[in-house]
């Protein structure tokens, strides 16, 4: 059987006045029911563009999927008609946005808004959809949902709004939930609640989650598989435990290094990755990460490394990932050995 979602060597380019922005430049992954994929990377690494491409929400022009394919239940979403796309959006694949303060329309009551996908996809009447919205609000942990459906968004707090957004995404029982940095705009305590809620929902509904974030803590909590992106490319892809405990790509090392640690009792500074991500219009020759990589050799600056499977199910795009001695230098490995 085909997996729920297959993204196959996806290239998404934006044709701007300044040149071609290669926002996504060869990304592949699969998603199975009930599993969670964590997509991590710095801002501008192509995470959101990948997600939006799956929903066919890239503004065209200037954006365009130039090659590759996205298959949902074996069907290419790139070949779907506008009507089929709309039937899929919000119904089979739903999305949660980053900023709950602006992702609810201020002029409609909460109930009416959460009910909108039901009216669109399930032919519910206004009354039925609001009743269903109340039930959904209760499911995402909002007290007195039957009264709160009559509220306007400005009467909800940030955490409550994100719960409302999740309720809206869940309304039609989607197969895939795409969450684009769902906790970035929230307080840390609320973040934990929202993540817990998502896990709870996943356990109950068997839906797949695609979690886009730059918070590695979130990925460690939630993800079964991790895709690390850099400058539009997948640089490391594998099971979460593997990527966390045996990271193969120096960029992944850098990401892990730049996390504050609680288990090491030194008052040392954080170790950020030096420099800025490259311009997506003029990518450096060879490996995109080479200008910032502490281990870069001549070959890195001349030849782009392909994403290659190093261990079963765990691949990396680095010339030296297969080199056991090189991997042993991984700061994380060194740390584990201490």
């Amino acid at each position: 059987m085909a997996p729920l979602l297959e993204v196959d060597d996806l290239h998404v380019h934006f044709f701007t006045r300044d040149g071609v922005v290669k926002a996504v430049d060869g990304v592949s992954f699969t998603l199975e029911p009930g599993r969670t994929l964590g997509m991590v990377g710095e801002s501008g690494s192509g995470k959101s563009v990948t997600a939006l491409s799956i929903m066919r929400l890239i503004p065209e022009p200037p954006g365009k999927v130039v090659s590759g394919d996205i298959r949902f239940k074996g069907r290419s979403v790139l070949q779907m008609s506008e009507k089929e796309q709309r039937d899929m959006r919000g119904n089979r694949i739903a999305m949660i946005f980053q900023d709950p303060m602006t992702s609810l329309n201020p002029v409609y009551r909460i109930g009416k808004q959460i009910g909108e996908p039901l009216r669109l996809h399930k032919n519910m009447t206004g009354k039925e959809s609001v009743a269903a919205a109340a039930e959904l609000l209760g499911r995402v942990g909002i007290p007195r949902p039957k009264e709160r459906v009559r509220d306007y968004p400005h009467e909800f707090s940030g955490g409550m709004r994100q719960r409302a957004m999740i309720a809206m995404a869940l309304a039609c029982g989607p197969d895939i939930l795409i969450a684009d940095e769902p906790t970035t705009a929230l307080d840390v305590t609320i973040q934990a609640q929202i993540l817990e809620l998502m896990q709870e929902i996943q356990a109950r509904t068997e839906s797949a989650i695609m979690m886009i974030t730059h918070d590695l803590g979130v990925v460690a909590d939630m993800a079964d598989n991790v895709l690390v992106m850099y400058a539009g490319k997948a640089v490391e892809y594998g099971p979460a435990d593997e990527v966390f405990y045996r990271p193969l790509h120096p960029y992944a090392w850098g990401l892990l290094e730049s996390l504050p640690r609680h288990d090491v009792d030194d008052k040392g500074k954080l170790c950020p990755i030096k420099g800025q991500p490259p311009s997506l219009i003029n990518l450096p020759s060879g490996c995109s990460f080479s200008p910032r990589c502490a281990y870069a050799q001549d070959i890195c600056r001349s030849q782009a490394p392909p994403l290659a499977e190093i261990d079963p199910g765990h691949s990396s795009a680095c010339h030296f990932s297969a080199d056991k001695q090189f991997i042993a230098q991984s700061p994380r490995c060194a740390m584990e050995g201490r």
Partner: protein
Amino acid sequence: MPLPISEFGGKGRTLRGDAWRRLCKNKLALVALGWIIFVIVIAVSADLWVPRVLGNPIEIDTTTVAQMSLNAPSSAHPFGTDFAGRDIASRVIYGARVSLMVGVVAVAIMVLLGLIAGAFAAYYGGWWDAIIMRTADIFFAFPYILFAIVLLALLGNGIQNVFIAIGILGWPSIARVFRGSVLFVKENEYVDAARAMGASTPRIVFRHIMPNAIAPIIVYATMSVGGAILTEAALSFLGMGVQLPKPSWGGMLSEAQTYMTSAPWLMLYPGLAILTTVLAFVLLGDGLRDALDVKMKG
């Protein structure tokens, strides 16, 4: 008994309710609104009482015209009478019907055209935007009243053509304000969320963008009613709008010119009617702007 109160403030607070409360705090706008309602009530109910109480606004009573001509204001004719012995108050009230009708119909035409043009320009962008907005710029470059006169010369005089002329001349400002407003609203995440939910383009434009982008248009349209009344008065003054002997404020002013020194009330009352009504619409628009919290741009 205390009313049930939700965790974060009173129940049933709506955006419209909030705006209304803010408008009520603005005394000047309330007075303006009161005046507008007063004028509307008087004008709409005119047929019921004005001819009986004040006299016919159009017909000239040939038997009494000599002694009734150019009488100063009195208890029987509170605003005086004109050269043909007709009651000025009666004519001002019937003139209000014309002015209000122009205000409503002409502004409705210009808002309709402006909304469609502005929405297209903002939502589709690119060529649509360039063509629509450059056309608007061309309209802005014409001298307004001259353009209106030319249009009326082409279409013929008369009140319907005044509606059309004002509508055609007014749409570019509405389009420009609405375009800016839509561009601003379009960037909100709830528009992306609506698309991600599977909403169609018309649904997104009409259900999600329009209601959030309409506030500046309400303000602008209210103020434009005043402008439309002024334009109609100017055109009727020049004899291109409402045709005499039908009463209109501009036409009355035109007739009054001859008697400016001998019978100044002929000019005073229609002039005051224009002034107060236009001012009321502008003040109400100002109050609405504060109440709806819109910053005028464009």
